[in-house]
């Protein structure tokens, strides 16, 4: 790699590493990775398909719809490309995010039309494929094949919509997740599982920071 590109990466890493959960060195690694993926040109951006490849190959995601949403959540400026900055911040949340960062990320992923609230329809879209048709235990009735999904939507809605607003805004989402961290990915796996996250991290990590969020209460919350 030429010196100028190297200096460039170093510069960006220097500027951005404080906004992420990575060290400067780790940021440089990630930026190099970005460069490799995009093909090396300075102005090349990570597009949807390449990004989905990464999600599939490195993070074991399979659901196409969900990958699109993750892309949207990464792509904060909605230009259908992921810039270097978006890449760093997104991966930071992905791998080392705090519960709050992950909550915000998940909410962006679930908010299909980016209007700041999750509606019943969006939820239905997200949960449509969760029940496996024709499996032994779930046999939809002829008249209403989506009954089960609607049921799930109602359950989730009841969990999140604590103020009976009819839609779920970020505040509600967050308070429910803080209450029960398992709800973080209640509408689909938008974050990598711990194993693949660890595997991805260990290719470049400099300091070991735990990747997982705690699903149980410790300290203050003890009975």
């Amino acid at each position, binding site marked *: 790699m030429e010196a100028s590109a190297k200096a460039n990466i170093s510069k960006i890493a220097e500027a951005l590493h404080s906004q992420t959960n990575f060290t400067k060195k780790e940021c440089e690694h990630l930026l190099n990775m970005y460069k490799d993926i995009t093909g090396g040109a300075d102005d090349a951006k990570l597009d949807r398909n390449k990004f989905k490849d990464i999600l599939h190959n490195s993070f074991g995601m399979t659901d196409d719809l969900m990958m699109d949403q993750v892309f949207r959540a990464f792509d904060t400026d909605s230009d259908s490309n992921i810039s270097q900055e978006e890449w760093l911040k997104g991966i930071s949340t992905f791998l080392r995010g705090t519960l709050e960062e992950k909550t915000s990320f998940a909410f962006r992923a679930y908010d299909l039309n980016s209007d700041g609230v999750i509606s019943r329809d969006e939820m239905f879209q997200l949960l449509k494929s969760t029940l496996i048709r024709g499996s032994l235990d779930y046999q939809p009735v002829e008249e209403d094949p989506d009954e089960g999904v609607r049921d*799930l939507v109602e359950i989730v809605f009841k*969990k999140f919509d604590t103020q009976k607003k009819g839609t779920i805004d970020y505040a509600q989402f967050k308070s429910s997740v803080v209450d029960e961290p398992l709800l973080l990915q209640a509408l689909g796996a938008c974050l990598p599982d711990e194993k693949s996250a660890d595997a991805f991290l260990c290719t470049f990590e400099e300091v070991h920071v735990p990747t997982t969020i705690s699903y*149980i209460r410790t*300290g203050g919350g003890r009975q």
Partner: protein
Amino acid sequence: MGLTLTKAADWLDNSKLDFSPSNQIILTDILKAVDGYSKNNPIGGKMKFSEPLVWDSTLKFEDFKKTERFPETSQEVAHVECHSFDMLQLVLDACRSKKTAEVRACLEGNSDPVSKILGNRYACNTEDDVEFYKQAEEDLQGEDITYEEFETKKVVLKMAMEFHNLDVRMLRSVQGLMSKDSRLSPRLVEAEFDCLKELSGSEDEQPLRDIEPVPCYVHVFSNGYRAPNFRQLQGDIAYFLVYLKDTDVICVTAGTKGWFVNKGYSKDTNDVDFERRSDLYGSLFALLRERSRHFRERTSRKSGDGETAADEAADGAEKPDQEGDADQQAAREEAEERKKDPTLRWVSLGTSEQQSQERRSARQPQSAAAAAQQSDESDSESGTDEEEDAVERRHESNADLPSEYWQIGKFVRYLKGGNQTSTIISLCALRDFQLNTEVCQLAIRDVGGLEVLLNLLETEENRCKIGSLKILKEISQNPQIRRAIADLGGLQTLVNILKEPSKDLKCLAAETIANVAKFRRARRIVRQHGGIRKLVSLLDCPALNGPTSPEIERDIEVARCGALALWSLSNSTKNKRAMKRAGVIPLLGKLLKSRHEDMLIPVVGTLQECASEPDYRVAIRTEGMVEDLVKNLKSDNAELQMHCASTIFKCAEEEETRDLVRSYDGLEPMVGLLNKTDNKELLSAATGAIWKCSMSSKNIRKFQELNVIEKLVRLLSDQPEEVLVNVVGALGEMAAEKENRHAIRKAGGIGPLVQLLTGTNQALLVNTTRAVGRCAQEKENMAIIDRMDGVRLLWSLLKNPNPEVQASAAYAICPCIDNVNDAGEMVRSYVGGLELIVHLLRSDNIKVLAAICAAVASIAKDEENLAVLTDHGVIPLLAGLTRTQDEELKRHLSEAIACCCAWGNNRIVFGKEGAVAPLVSYLRVKDPKVHRSTARALHELSRHPDNCITMHECGVVRHLLGLVGSDDEALQLAASGCIANIRRLAMANEKSRQSSKARGGGNGGANGKAVAAK
């Protein structure tokens, strides 16, 4: 019935029904349904079949003569045609004993009888039964039907419904039969092997000695088989050597067809002779029952063999249909065979009561093996278990199920039928139920949720595991759920999860184990799967009291959950040992320094459980845990205080620990706890600790400063027995000092103590008699005891069945007699009292004997009583005891002998009974107290010359001379007195010899010479 006939029945090529057991069942069922149908349903019976049933009958023309009406049959009767159930009934009546054969013939002629009877509409339909109901609805809703048509249709439908139900019933019974026939698989074989391995052991209770795979075929191939490849082709799965108790070793083969005995394993060639030498058995269990009487007895005594008894019941029900039918012969023989087993057993076992017991237990869906296994545990583990017999309560019918059942059932369905997202959602939804209520807990179990939840634990999805564990953790508070989890093999999975890197998982799994391991079998399973080592390693928490971060908090939480699980597990002795081996002690010591109460409670709780083992007590002292225990005694948390006090209670058995408690100022907080009279558990623990600590005299002094006696005396009333035992025990220890004995009186403690003598709690009685006895050493106290007739109460306790109570009461009687005015009169006033004392000298408990000897010594001080005792034959009994090895008994026995010498010719009798020589040997033991009482006894005995001679022969003088030099004046006096007596005898002897010499005749006794020589 159409489905059964097409799918389940075994048809031969020529569309004949095979003579198979399942076909027999089907035939009998059909016959049962058809025979008598027209009687029960007159309308249905008359209805005309849409097509007649036609078949070649097995009947002869003559058979029909006996019936009144003929069905439409052709001349030679070979061909029968039936148009209604009424007619069918006639045919069947004509068959009499050959009904099944006729049904068989009918079915062979009409492969789908339902469609013929009811019309093609109802032809055999292999599809779902939804169709059927739809059809029924259509039928009834047709527009232009008359009333009659409607009625007929209703009848048809009703019959269709009945056929349908019959179909379902038959399919079930055929399925039941098929499931019994299933072939062995490696998994089943290994499961049975494991089960029997569990049951084996050297104790008499255990049905067999050992079972092991044949040494040359130990290896398990990847397909689960142990047999070598060339034998696998023959269907062999594995070979085992079974060491039976009553017969030799047998070598058995597990094949896919069943278990059998082969020609045996030879050590020389290291190979098995594969040839079969016995019948085939469905299980090794059955084989062994047949082979070994011991095995049969040990397994049947515990519970009936559920399966065979159930079989028999089923056979009984079938019987009426099997009368003398040739076709049934085979089936019946088979049934006979099956029946043989239980019948024989019942004969050999005898009484009808046992039979009924067996029948009763057979109703429980529990196999004999499982029951035997459980009773095996009770031998091996000591832990107390109140939940062992949790009562099973199930809802009888669906009608009165609460609505939770349906909702939970729905969520469990989503749990199973979706991807991880829907699983997580369902788990969260399930968590919203009131999981701490029994309704929900049982609902989850009854809709099959436990299986799913446990299944989730074996997936790769951490979030699913966490969600599932969160639910399991809650519902496992229910004893029935615990059992169900253990039965489903959940503990093994939970133990495996402890290995996971995720701390959340470790925490939740440990907490669940803590809940489940509340009963013995569960604790054992956890140990056997290596759970203890893993749980102990959870306790290793690097930063305990440093600055906290979320990560450290999680480590602490892991350690806390580990401690919780170990707390539950430490209820079993074997587990305590396993925990020690896993190195739990230093880790607990470290955690004990924690500041968190919720950490300390399980840690101290575990210590408290473990402190029942001497090893742990020493370790608690040497690892410096006493200091922390004392520190936590001052905490604000009552539960923690309670566990600390209990631990000290158990540990303070050791003197060093008692001193440590004092040096860490532990006595003050302990006494402070006496004010918490509301919390009985705490009070019991605190008083227990005080009791044990007051065994050291320095502690007693400290307690005196703290005015403990007054506080304890105040607790003598209105407290549960657990508290009283400890309070009285403590008072008893304190009463070792004179001041305290007075203090007890001044605090008004004597009265309540004497009243407690009327109780029944044995531990309490032991402590009370001891305390009363000690208090009686003071005259003032004795006056109160006498006034309350305390001695009579003590005396009556000599009749208590518990030897400890007897001994303690006898000891207590001694000071009473010594200190009461006119003791002799008092003792005589107890009718049969002295006789009782003499009788107790025949006890086989050394402690009782020693105590009674002490009592005899006290009683014998009164001459009249001594006379009565002598009359009751106390002297030979005492003399008979002299050969004892127990020092305590030696001491009191010689005291008693000393006192008993005072009457009549008792001295001579002792000599004659050979009591003197053993007494001399008592002087060789180390204990000075024994010396003193022995010297007294010898002194008394030496007043008779014969005894002197015996003593001298035994070489008493050398010992006595040594004792004369002792500091103990009483001992000196007795020893020198004894020597004086011997000397005097010798002198007298010398004198008489000289005088006889002077007379020129007679010679002194040879013995006398011997004495004189000295």
